[in-house]
């Protein structure tokens, strides 16, 4: 895991994007994700998958930025999912109630199917 968060973006289709993070989601890391997410929302994407396989720590400031992203995705009528979370991060998201508004998946494929409405 790198010190400075990196975000890699993939576009499996016109309205869906996958953001793969690598690093610590703190204030700076969260802002990096938000910058990438908001750029995508401005181009017609409203289904976002955050793949956190290479993120081992998220702090509360980073979480608050993820909630901002979630709010914008929901406001655009879209969906947001997370995949490949560490057990600690998944537990944190569950405790916060984030899972009521954004689904959590163990892998990318079922997450993408849910984002596209192919699976519940």
């Amino acid at each position, binding site marked *: 895991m790198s010190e400075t968060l990196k975000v890699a973006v993939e576009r499996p289709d016109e309205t869906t994007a996958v953001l793969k993070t690598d690093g610590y989601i703190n204030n700076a890391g969260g802002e990096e994700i938000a910058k990438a997410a908001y750029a995508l929302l401005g181009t017609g994407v409203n289904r976002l998958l955050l793949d956190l396989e290479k993120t*081992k*720590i*998220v*702090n*509360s*400031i980073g*979480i*608050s*930025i993820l*909630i*901002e992203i*979630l*709010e914008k995705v*929901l406001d655009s009528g879209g969906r947001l999912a997370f995949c490949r979370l*560490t*057990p*600690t991060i998944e*537990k*944190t998201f569950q*405790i*916060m*109630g*984030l899972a*009521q*508004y954004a689904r959590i998946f163990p892998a990318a494929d079922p997450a993408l199917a849910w984002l596209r409405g192919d699976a519940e």
Partner: protein
Amino acid sequence: MNAVSIRACRIRDKLEACINAFEHSDTPDRRVELDFRIGVADGSRVYLEVGVSDAGKGFDPARVSPPDIADKLKSSRKRGWGIKIIESLMDDVRIESGTHGTKIVMRKYR
């Protein structure tokens, strides 16, 4: 719980407590002290205890409202998750706070 997840909880909760101390304490010296203790409870339960102290203005933990995700989604202020996260991931959390400052002691059993 395996060693990796214990380490992840430990680092994360220590960070949360430090963030809170720096952000909210208004401590005049901008210092936060950390102390670590490994101990055994009830004869066999090994634990790690981390203390985070500041000499700031203190606060009343009973007056901190637990955050709610539905409210946060509608609010311009998304912050305020630190104590909830700490309490959820650690086994015991003790907060001592007054005009002399605040100390939060977090314990995780092996």
